């Protein structure tokens, strides 16, 4: 622990040099850049920023901003409390629901067959003519294929199922499409990202692009990447969805927030997810 602090201090000294040399923001980014989950899933926690993100040169997973204790909890599935939710969702996956007598497994066989889903969502859905999040896709399966009642967008059941979809996709490189039919939604998301909200007049970019690594109260701001969602927040002792986190951020600007599941948040999710193109899927991650 002591040695880690010392390293960070030295990192800060070098960062100070970098500030003087290049004018980049002062940022205390954790020294630990290697995350291998269960000794086998190698994560990319640092990558060159995608071309469409002009404000960043390097993208970092939220994992690098956390303390060694929190980082450790994500490195092993037995230490990650969210894996209890994933276990529960595995059982649900096999359970027939609704009037059609079908389970998720009836079509998808195993959760592992959905391993590329998390890395490519939100995604344009031709049939519905809209960009869909993982939650919307789950809802579509339940209501249109299984004849079941939809889970609430941010319900515990939905967060668990979405955690399962993430868990089987861990290690896949995030690659969300932003062109073609998704482009206008992506542009709407970008617009929201750079719009200042609330009495504090803060945009997403003010904190997560211009000040990542800096302290907000006694906590390090991350880049606000969503590759670790749904994420197990120690503060909540439970899974938190992407839209719930968005809502919390806008609430903290003392602004009226968009609703969980709203078209605005879907657009923002697409845009923010695309800022992480090049990182790996980590959900369900562990964060403070």
């Amino acid at each position: 622990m002591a040695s880690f602090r010392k390293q960070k201090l030295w990192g800060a000294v070098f960062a100070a040099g970098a500030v003087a040399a290049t004018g980049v923001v002062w940022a205390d980014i954790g020294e630990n850049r290697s995350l291998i989950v269960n000794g086998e899933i190698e994560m990319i926690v640092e990558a060159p920023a995608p071309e469409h993100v002009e404000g960043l040169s390097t993208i970092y997973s939220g994992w690098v901003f956390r303390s060694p204790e929190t980082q450790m909890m994500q490195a092993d599935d037995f230490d990650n409390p969210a894996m209890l939710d994933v276990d529960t969702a595995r059982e649900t996956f096999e359970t027939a629901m609704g009037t059609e007598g079908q389970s998720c497994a009836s079509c998808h066989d195993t959760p592992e067959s959905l391993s590329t889903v998390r890395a490519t969502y939100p995604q344009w859905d031709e049939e519905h003519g809209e960009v869909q999040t993982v939650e919307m896709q789950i809802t579509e399966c339940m209501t249109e294929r299984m004849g079941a009642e939809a889970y609430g967008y941010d319900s515990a059941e939905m967060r668990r199922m979405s955690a399962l979809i993430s868990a089987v996709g861990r290690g896949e490189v995030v690659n969300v499409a932003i062109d073609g039919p998704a482009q206008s939604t992506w542009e709407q998301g970008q617009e929201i990202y750079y719009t200042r909200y609330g009495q504090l007049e803060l945009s997403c970019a003010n904190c997560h692009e211009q000040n990542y690594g800096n302290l907000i109260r006694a906590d390090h701001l991350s880049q606000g990447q969503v590759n670790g969602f749904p994420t197990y927040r120690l503060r909540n002792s439970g899974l938190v969805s992407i839209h719930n986190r968005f809502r919390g951020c806008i609430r903290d600007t003392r602004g009226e927030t968009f609703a969980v599941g709203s078209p605005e948040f879907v657009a923002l999710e697409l845009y923010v997810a695309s800022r992480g193109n090049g990182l790996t899927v980590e959900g369900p991650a562990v964060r403070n």
Partner: protein
Amino acid sequence: MADGVTARVRAPREASAGEVVSVRCLINHTMESGQRRDDDGNVIPRSIINRFTCDFNGQNVIDVALEPAISTNPYFQFDALVNESGTFNFTWYDDDGDVYEEASEITVS
């Protein structure tokens, strides 16, 4: 709390006689501390797992008394001494009287 309680245990399946093996266990439980208030200002009653035990072939490995300061989803890691093949029995005792049990076999050569 009896609904949806899932326990996970991890102990080795094989060991040699006289070996010390590491055992880990995790159970999902809110561990309501009795210190929090709801939106109306009323104290939410305490509801925790208050005891956890691990036995190996009927011999006690560890017997833990939990207080409300134990985090949600109680987690324990400890060591057991195995001299023969047998069964680990894990038992969690809930304030509400429920008892949750898990077992894990180990072959000792």
